[in-house]
């Protein structure tokens, strides 16, 4: 395998800042070297992979639970029951129940981002320089040690002629060709896809930008995951938008098998009382207005309630979305609430949860009201109210007018979303560039055949026939174990020979005129199963 290692030294390595300062030992240099070491990057990616795996297989606290430490602490009873000791203590200590919002995960992403940035800055100048000033000159040893090489001997032509022909073939194969002349030696350097390497920067810049856009979206944007609008009602969006969402209706449809076919809400957006947008939104077709996206996310039952005060004036008449679940004393109920008038009473409206069987206290077609006065832990009144039957409670007349449905919307304002897509496109383009446009470099050296000694010529016992030829043409390439490039190189070498051979004279004692191809063309066994 010695041959595989040699070319790296024969072809000058791309310079990096870390290499340039390799001897320096101060803390900044060491840190720089650590951050741009591929080994460290691999460790970071492996750690990230480990974190992702932990977050996949270990139970994760839902987003709403993570809103406060109290809800999270209360939620911890569930994993404790599931995993038991000592796992629970271990997972808790490592913060594995909320991996993706944990401090260590954020720190890991921050270090990873920093490493990508440092690595890019480290390599960019050197790679740019190697694109602009490629390694045109290489030591002659390359032509004896490179994993891909070919050699031809010709009589009756000059090395300049061979150089011109080789350059012609390379140019026709879309190589950039740089011929050089150094004394009697005519060389050609050719490369292809020299910009492909820049794809790795595009890709890494894309990844960093995606992470940055994620942070930006969290800081500058907002989301409301449980925005409920009953049919026929309207609700303000808030967040200083001045927008009000009105629902003109909600429809859910099912296939005969019971699987959901369609959910849709007819929405109207109002600003200062004027309609500004209107759309029937579906799960896959949200409404977008002023950078805010209105998604159809869920739905549920709603009731229209009417409340009149002692004077008979309407104190409240609106839909109430029963979008919350209340579990207690062995029964499960859906409910919602509204705030009533100047007395700031909270009125909870409850119905039996769907598909949970009959409720002991709430007959079908009725709602249960639990009315709380301000700062009271217990309800001041509990009443069960059949539809269309007004009843006086605490000085007001309550009426359950009719059943409706509500649209559960998700409201999202993410000013960084387009940046995210742009970064994702950069990442994708970078990956495609790196993989589909690998750097190809070929070095060609034509010189007088007289001095043809050593290397392949000697190994093949051809040094004594060298005298019969005038030009010795050698090709070399560094392959990185690439079968396809090895084949391309072989075909290139043969094409160059086909181009030069007609110009050459037959060497004495040898027919036909075509050059002698010697040496290893590919660095591995032919590809055949």
């Amino acid at each position, binding site marked *: 395998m010695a041959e595989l290692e040699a070319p790296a030294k024969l072809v000058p390595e791309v310079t990096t800042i870390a290499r340039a300062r390799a001897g320096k030992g101060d803390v900044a240099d060491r840190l720089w070297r650590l951050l741009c070491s*591929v*080994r460290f*990057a*691999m460790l970071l*990616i*492996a750690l*990230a*992979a480990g974190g*992702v*795996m932990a*977050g*996949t297989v270990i139970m*994760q606290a839902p987003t709403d639970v993570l809103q406060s430490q109290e809800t999270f602490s209360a939620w911890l009873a569930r994993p404790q029951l599931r995993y038991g000791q000592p796992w629970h203590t271990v997972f808790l200590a490592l913060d594995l129940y909320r991996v*993706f919002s944990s401090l260590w995960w954020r720190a890991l992403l921050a270090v990873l981002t920093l490493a990508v940035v440092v690595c890019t800055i480290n390599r960019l100048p050197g790679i740019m320089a190697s694109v602009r000033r490629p390694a045109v000159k290489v030591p002659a040893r390359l032509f004896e040690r490179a994993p891909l090489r070919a050699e031809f001997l010709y009589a009756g032509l000059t090395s300049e002629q061979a150089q011109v022909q080789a350059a012609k073939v390379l140019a026709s194969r879309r190589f950039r060709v740089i011929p050089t002349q150094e004394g009697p030696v005519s060389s050609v350097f050719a490369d292809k896809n020299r910009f492909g390497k820049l794809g790795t920067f595009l890709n890494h810049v894309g990844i960093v930008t995606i992470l940055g856009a*994620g942070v930006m979206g969290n800081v500058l944007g907002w*989301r409301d*995951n449980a925005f409920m609008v009953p049919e026929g009602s309207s609700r303000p969006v808030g967040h200083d938008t001045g927008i009000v969402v009105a629902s003109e209706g909600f429809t859910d449809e099912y*296939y005969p*098998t019971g*699987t*959901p*076919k*369609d*959910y849709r809400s007819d929405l109207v957006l109002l600003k200062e009382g004027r309609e500004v947008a209107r759309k029937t939104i*579906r*799960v*896959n*077709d*949200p409404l977008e207005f002023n950078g805010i*996206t209105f*998604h159809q*996310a869920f739905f549920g039952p709603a009731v229209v309630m009417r409340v009149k005060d002692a004077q008979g004036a309407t104190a409240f008449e609106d839909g109430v979305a029963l979008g919350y679940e209340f579990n207690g004393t062995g029964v499960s109920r859906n409910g919602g609430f509204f705030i009533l008038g100047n007395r700031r009473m909270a009125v909870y409206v409850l119905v039996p949860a769907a598909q949970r069987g009959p409720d002991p206290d709430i007959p079908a077609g009725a709602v249960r009201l639990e009315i709380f006065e301000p700062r009271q832990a217990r309800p001041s009144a509990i009443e069960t109210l059949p539809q269309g039957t007004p009843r006086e409670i605490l000085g007001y007349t309550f009426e359950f007018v009719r059943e409706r449905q509500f649209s559960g919307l*998700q409201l*999202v304002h993410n000013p960084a*979303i387009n940046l*995210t*897509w742009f970064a*994702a496109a950069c*990442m*994708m383009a970078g*990956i*495609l560039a790196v*993989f589909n446009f690998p750097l190809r470099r070929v070095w060609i050296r034509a010189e007088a055949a007289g001095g043809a000694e050593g290397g392949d010529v000697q190994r093949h016992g051809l040094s004594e026939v060298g005298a019969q030829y005038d030009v010795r043409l050698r090709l070399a390439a560094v392959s990185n*174990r*690439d*079968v*396809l490039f090895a084949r391309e190189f072989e075909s290139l070498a043969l094409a160059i020979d086909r181009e030069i051979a007609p110009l050459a004279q037959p060497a004495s004692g040898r027919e036909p005129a075509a050059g002698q191809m010697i040496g290893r063309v590919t660095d*591995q*066994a032919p*590809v*055949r*199963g």
Partner: protein
Amino acid sequence: MAVLSYYAFTAAFITFGVALLAYLWYSVGQQKEAGRFATFFTYNGAALLTASLGARWIAAGHPPYSNQFEFATSFAWGTAATYLYLENRYRLRGMGLVVIGVAFALLAYASILPARIDPLIAALQNRPLLTIHVAMAIISYGAFACAFAAGLLYLVNRQGQIGFLPHPDVLDEIGYKSVIIGFPAQTLLLILGSVWANVAWGAYWSWDPKETAALFTWLIYGVYLHARAQRGWHGVRTSWLLLAGFGAVLFTFFGNYFLGGLHTYSGL
């Protein structure tokens, strides 16, 4: 059409079985002639599977990506298609035994699943994204299956001592070539998944188990690519990474059974 699809599936299943036997005969029995039969049957099996999926598409009126039977069949199709591409490109039959083995196992798994044709549920009603998103999954998983076969055979034949298996250097490179097909496809899979999630779920990334499992897979192949290109790793170490990567692919694919989350449409 549904009946036609089912017949074509059964025929493909049998044809892949025959192809597998032919690859076995080719590799272990060292019969060069059997190789041509193996390739012939694999092409036919792939064509039958294409017909089966195509007929299903017509019968259902949507791409055949709506339940686990259809995913498994499509995964097998992707594996066979990527393999045929590589076999043709590298003139290499020695991996057929493992890769077609994987495809056959996927079809066997599909054959025990309910094969009913389901209408698209509301969340999946996004024809262009459903088509490309899942197509990318099929290509990347198929390519990773080929990379897995290359890695496995490398570990078995690391000294090149088993004559009927491809040369270790070739396997090392085929593994890499498979990954550079699979990795961009999986990247696009994740990006399009995010685009879709942003439309349908209101967030482009929700740390949903299927998302995180796919991200885990992506990261493993990321380590592989860095290790190989920048650290010069090859052979045994990268082969283990290829095995781990395919383990993650299978974990992601079968994750619907035990992970729950937003991607549980499989109808199981």
